[in-house]
């Protein structure tokens, strides 16, 4: 696998190993790459928009956000014979951040996101599934504490036959934090045999933490499969009891159950170094 790295620091590109970024157009274009791993680091980044175009390529994109970042609008195009596996790491973001992502997907788009940041965050992602059999899998694990507010809005527009969206968002809300997860799958006329599933789960660790989920489905076509589920509450007491019967203390059991919202992320990380980083970050924040 070929590796590339781009680092944005303020409004400059500090590193671009394969010269992929075009500053004039703010575009990153990847064409005809069999396997490419692209690591983009946004460090106190002040650029406000970015275009990522993937054609006839299979790309693993690791996006790491740190420091201050006001807002970033990203537009991504994934062509019919292409795939994008995006791993987003929001570990050290600060202050107030607005991330807008618009994805025009004709191929396969897989988005995995780990947000452990101490920041107010507005995350707005919209995925257009525009050609037959285009797919999107999304898994997000989000942690919010103190007084931070996090809002994640994700929309899937199914425009063609046999498209698929599979969305799982798990959140843990601590202290006085507020978390809102809104998912919406819109199956438009003509998108027969489409499948859309959504699962949202939030644990509120304190009485003052507030988690809310809005799972929406809009269906304008017949012969489709669509399902949504959500749960918001404290740690599952039946699960906790079961762990206690095996010798875990109340605190150990609770910690294990909280971590269980984040551990599915490991299955998506192949890179050992990255896996270690993720493990350490989860260990530090969640325990």
């Amino acid at each position: 696998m070929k590796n590339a790295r781009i680092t944005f620091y303020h409004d400059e590109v500090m590193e671009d190993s394969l010269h992929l970024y075009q500053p004039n157009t703010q575009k990153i274009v990847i064409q005809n790459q069999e396997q490419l791993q692209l690591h983009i680091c946004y460090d106190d980044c002040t650029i406000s928009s970015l275009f990522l175009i993937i054609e006839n390529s299979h790309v693993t994109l690791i996006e790491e956000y740190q420091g201050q970042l006001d807002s970033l609008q990203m537009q991504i195009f994934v062509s019919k014979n292409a795939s994008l596996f995006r791993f987003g790491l929001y570990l050290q973001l600060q202050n107030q951040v607005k991330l807008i992502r618009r994805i025009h997907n004709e191929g396969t788009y897989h988005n995995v996101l780990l947000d452990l940041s101490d920041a107010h965050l507005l995350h707005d992602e919209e995925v257009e599934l525009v050609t037959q059999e285009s797919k999107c899998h999304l898994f997000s694990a989000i942690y919010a504490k103190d007084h931070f507010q996090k809002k994640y809005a994700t929309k899937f527009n199914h425009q063609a036959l046999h498209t698929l969206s599979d969305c799982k968002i798990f959140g843990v809300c601590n202290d006085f934090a507020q978390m809102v997860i809104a998912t919406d799958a819109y199956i438009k006329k003509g998108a027969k045999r489409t499948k859309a599933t959504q699962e949202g789960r939030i644990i509120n660790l304190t009485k003052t933490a507030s988690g809310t989920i809005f799972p929406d489905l809009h269906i304008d076509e017949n012969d489709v499969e669509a399902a949504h589920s959500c749960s918001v509450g404290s740690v599952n007491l039946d699960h906790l009891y079961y762990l206690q019967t095996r010798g875990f203390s109340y605190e150990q059991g609770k910690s294990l159950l909280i971590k269980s919202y984040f551990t599915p992320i490991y299955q998506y990380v192949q890179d050992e170094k990255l896996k270690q980083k993720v493990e350490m970050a989860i260990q530090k924040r969640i325990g």
Partner: protein
Amino acid sequence: MSLLTIKNLHVEVEGKEILKGIDLEINAHEIHALLGPNGNGKSTLLSTIMGQPKYKITQGSIFYKGQDVLKMSVDARAKAGLFLALQYPPEIPGVINSEFLKAAVNTRLEKPVSLYRFIKELEEATKEVDLPLDIVHRSLNDGFSGGEKKRNEIIQMKLLKPELAMLDEIDSGLDVDALNAVVKAIQEVIQRGGSTLVVSHYARFYQLIQPSHVHIIVDGQIVVSGDASLIHRIDTEGFDWVKAEYHVRDKKTTRPNSIGLCGVKEKINEKR
């Protein structure tokens, strides 16, 4: 000193009394069988011993090796040697089975178990219950079949090595090979000087484990205790004679009381 002593135990759930004065004594090397019509307190008794917080003890005492169990937390009971294989083990996505098992083993040890020893014991346990090893890399009970969940309970029992193992309908959903693995796990407990308290509706299972003591619980009370001959009588006559002779009425009479041949029947059906 007896392993477990229960005296005049009264338990209620949501204001409704379920157990109405249970007395029970279990000594080392004993296998106790608990029978009774559905919904008459068998599972409640096991869960109460383990410390299920939903159950409120209004009267009575439970002592385990001289320790007052009712003053112990659930995990303290587990570490002291009590184990309950649940009738319906929960599915916990995100908690990886092998990590859970290793951490559970370590809760009982001062020094963490060596990885080599743990993997060796885990491999042996999964082989004995006839589960593929990859099941330990999956989330705990998540997406497991009923039989796989029960086998996973037995893996836990083998690794945690309890002194008093309580098995709540462990045989339901198990084929005859898995039943033999349960029997072996029970024998291991007995050989270590421990005991078991088993709830089942099936005579075949009791034939395999050969209980030393049998108790029949009706309407929250142990109305009769005896040896394995009681199982044969229940198997042939049901619970009506118990109710008639001991002047008790069970709480639910809508479900059949007969005890049959669970695992064997299933195995035969499978082969057909």
